[in-house]
């Protein structure tokens, strides 16, 4: 039977005592008197205290892998771990506070770094500038006019140390598994060399390739090449494009990014030296970058260019002005509003970090005040100050390590999906651009579209199909309500779509006023507007029956119905929320068609179904895109939505941290007031009143914070405006809701300290006096 374990110090005494006892017994057996035997046994043992000290020294001991100091610290860590385990709420709260603050800051910083701070990887990135044409008033626009582009690509390029340019067009590749639309970027020869984009395989373009009449050659981007299997035998082979055959001569690294296609569907073609491209391509050269001569700052170069363009203006006046505005290329990485929004993000995360730290410190302080007695006892038992310090240090270290680990997890949590505010339903959309060679007439096009629509509707998985025959946006013409003054604050773009009468049904949109389209509407001037457009034009009144037009020359449309949200072109701030629908005219069927399909089941099934159905009818017709509504939303909204998602996450974290902070501060306060509380309770203070008073303290704190926060929010609202959709930055409802939430959270956080306050034992407090 083993005896119960004893503390180590007792062990030494027992062992020594046992030995002396045994020796005394042995002496007694050999004839000694018990008392003398005892004394002799002690004498023979020598110095028990010395032995004890030696044993203790051995236990603490030198030796072992870490040495005395290391082993001591390991022991401290173990003690610290045990001590923290006894206070799980405290440890948890500290770790959480730090982790949230650090994690949030880290992940936001990663975003900022990627979008804003990391310099572009081009060679001489800081010297490349973008050439933008200017309007007569001097504002910069995107791109250039053809005549300008022609000039800068030929005579004008001596002003720069280097010049590259490109235009991107969509071309269909026919020799893949499916016809595939790609972005073909036509670049000036030597672009990859000048920008420092590596040639991964094969070769880049040469001047020979740019000679007019030379065979067509293309370069694949590395992303595209890898996506299609990284087959090196492809280099040197000819591929079949809609525009004709082209030989693949090499593979270039990712360098030129276009949001709509990305790198994975991109090829490069070479700009011929006769610049015939400028005549052929609808969009022309979309980007021209010049390399500032060494040592010449942008402002100086700008004035050189201004002088030159002024001279050109005189010699060779054009309908479009010659003016050029230079911009550094890193400005392209994110638009001005996005940059602002990103800095707001940065400020927020710094604030979160500080909150996390303050919360953690508060909580540690609380714990410190409750441990004074424990620490005093340790000191009385012989703990040196150094030992105590090491113990506290070990605790701090453990907490920090745990927080760091958790922070990594927090940083890895990708954006919480932001609820777009409406159901994306179970809808998919597919866009087709009918081949002009195979479908030459309206009748042919209408026939295919009808057959496709019927075939899709025949599928059991598909609940409804509607075809949008044209969609786009009105641009530049002001919206005018009949009989009213034209407003100044016009949206830049107003999306519209020509739809069939089942459009609203299939998409599950019910008109809030009036009706949707019926067959009789085809070819008429009837329109269905969305609620925001109605409000823009007519305020709160019912617009059914009223008329509007775009531009003074435009035709009048009569409103027959109003619908809530439409999402014709995504929720880009630029395009505004105003949209309208027109009835499709079956007599006119253009080459473009959008199919919207609805299913009761999994929307991810719809894209493959669509492909299959189309393939059965026409295997050579390529699909521009087919995706679920959710995917479309995600793609079109790009950066702003991403930012909103982050901000939402951060706001939630901030609320959590605020709760922890309030808890911490109140817990300290209650601890400090222990004596007072104990006395009050002893004197008969009502427990409920006490609890309420602590709760009120918490709520008052939060109220103060909410006021300060509200003021800051109002002041900083302008910066955040870029992120908001359909919401004024100073929306009083939003601010009021935020304040209410924080007050509620504070009340909850204050609950535990409030209850603890009432549990103070007056007897214990008074005894301690």
């Amino acid at each position: 039977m083993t005896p119960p374990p004893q503390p180590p110090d007792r062990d030494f005494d027992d062992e020594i005592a046992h030995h002396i006892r045994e020796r005394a017994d042995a002496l007694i057996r050999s004839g000694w008197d018990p008392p003398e035997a005892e004394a002799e046994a002690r004498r023979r043992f020598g110095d028990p205290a010395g032995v004890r000290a030696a044993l203790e020294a051995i236990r603490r001991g030198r030796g072992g892998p870490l040495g005395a100091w290391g082993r001591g610290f390991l022991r401290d860590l173990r003690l610290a771990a045990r001590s923290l385990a006894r206070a799980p709420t405290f440890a948890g709260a500290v770790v959480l506070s730090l982790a949230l603050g650090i994690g949030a800051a880290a992940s936001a910083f990663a975003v900022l770094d990627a979008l804003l701070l990391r310099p572009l990887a081009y060679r001489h990135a800081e010297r490349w500038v973008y050439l933008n044409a200017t309007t007569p008033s001097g504002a910069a626009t995107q791109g250039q006019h053809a005549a300008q582009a022609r000039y800068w690509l030929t005579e004008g390029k001596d002003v720069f140390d280097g010049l590259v340019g490109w235009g991107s067009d969509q071309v269909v590749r026919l020799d893949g598994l499916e016809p595939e639309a790609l972005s073909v970027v036509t670049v000036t020869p030597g672009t990859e060399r000048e920008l420092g984009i590596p040639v991964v395989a094969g070769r880049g373009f040469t001047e020979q390739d740019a000679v007019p009449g030379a065979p067509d050659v293309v370069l694949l981007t590395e992303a595209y090449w890898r996506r299609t299997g990284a087959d090196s035998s492809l280099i040197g082979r000819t591929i079949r494009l809609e525009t004709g055959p082209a030989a693949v001569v090499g593979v270039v690294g990712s360098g030129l990014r276009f949001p709509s296609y990305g790198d994975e569907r991109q090829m490069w073609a070479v700009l011929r030296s006769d610049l015939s491209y400028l005549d052929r391509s609808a969009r022309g050269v979309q980007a021209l970058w010049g390399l500032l001569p060494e040592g010449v700052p942008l402002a100086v170069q700008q004035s050189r260019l201004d002088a030159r363009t002024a001279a050109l203006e005189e010699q060779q006046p054009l309908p479009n002005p010659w003016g050029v505005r230079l911009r550094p290329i890193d400005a392209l990485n994110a638009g001005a509003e996005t940059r602002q929004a990103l800095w707001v993000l940065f400020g927020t995360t710094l604030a979160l970090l500080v909150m996390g730290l303050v919360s953690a410190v508060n909580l540690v302080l609380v714990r410190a005040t409750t441990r004074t007695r424990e620490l005093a006892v340790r000191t009385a038992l012989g703990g040196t100050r150094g030992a105590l310090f090491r113990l506290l240090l070990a605790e701090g270290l453990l907490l920090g390590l745990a927080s760091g680990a958790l922070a990594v997890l927090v940083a890895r949590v990708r954006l919480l999906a932001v609820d777009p505010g409406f159901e994306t339903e179970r809808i998919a959309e597919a866009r087709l651009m009918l081949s002009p060679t195979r479908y030459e007439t309206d009748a042919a096009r209408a026939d295919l579209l009808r057959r496709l629509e019927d075939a899709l509707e025949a599928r059991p998985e598909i609940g409804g199909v509607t075809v949008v025959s044209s969609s786009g946006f009105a641009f530049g013409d002001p919206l005018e309500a009949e009989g009213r003054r034209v407003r100044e604050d016009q949206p830049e773009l107003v999306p519209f779509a020509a739809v069939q009468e089942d459009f609203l049904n299939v998409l599950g949109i019910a008109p809030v006023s009036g009706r949707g389209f019926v067959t009789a509407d085809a070819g008429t001037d009837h329109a269905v507007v969305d609620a925001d457009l109605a409000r823009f034009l007519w305020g709160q009144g019912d617009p059914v029956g009223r008329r509007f037009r775009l531009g003074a020359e435009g035709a009048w449309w009569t409103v027959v119905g109003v619908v809530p949200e439409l999402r014709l072109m995504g929720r880009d701030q630029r395009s505004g929320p105003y949209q309208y629908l027109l009835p499709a005219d079956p007599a006119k069927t253009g080459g473009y068609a959008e199919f919207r399909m609805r299913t009761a089941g999994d929307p991810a099934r719809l894209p493959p179904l669509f492909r299959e159905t189309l393939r059965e009818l026409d295997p050579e017709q390529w699909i521009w895109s087919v995706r679920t509504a959710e995917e479309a939303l995600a793609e079109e909204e790009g950066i702003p939505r991403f930012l909103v998602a982050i901000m939402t996450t951060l706001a939630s974290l901030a609320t959590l941290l605020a709760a922890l902070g309030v808890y911490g501060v109140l817990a300290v306060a209650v601890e400090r007031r222990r004596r007072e509380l104990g006395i009050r309770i002893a004197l008969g203070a009502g427990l409920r009143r006490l609890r309420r008073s602590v709760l009120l303290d918490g709520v008052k704190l939060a109220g103060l914070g909410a006021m300060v926060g509200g003021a800051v929010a109002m002041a900083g609202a302008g910066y955040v405006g870029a992120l908001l959709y359909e919401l004024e930055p100073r929306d009083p409802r939003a601010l009021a809701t935020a304040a209410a939430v924080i007050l509620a959270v504070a009340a909850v956080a204050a609950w535990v300290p409030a209850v603890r306050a009432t549990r103070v034992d007056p007897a214990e407090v008074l005894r301690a006096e």
Partner: protein
Amino acid sequence: MPRPALSVLPGTVTSLALSALEQGGRMHGFEVLSWLETQTDGQLLVEEGALYPALHRLEKRGLIRGDWGISEKGRRAKYYTLTAAGRKELARERVQWARYAALMDKVMAPEAGS
């Protein structure tokens, strides 16, 4: 007349203790001491003060294992046993001791013929 007991050479107590535990089995500190006394007819003096630190050092190095038990007399006592590592170490020390002793003999031996 018994010759005076020799003090144990410093550094050899651990070897003695290992050997004692090998041959005597599970013993507590006093038993180890008694065993050594018996084996050497009381000729070798091992100080208690030296024995216990030696035992604890051996325990720390993992060469012996200590466990608390109740003696036949009903007292709380710490018993020690040799571990496998201890056996190996003992074998090593035996070899070393033999070499040392032989070298000592050689050096200390009187000149042949004196």
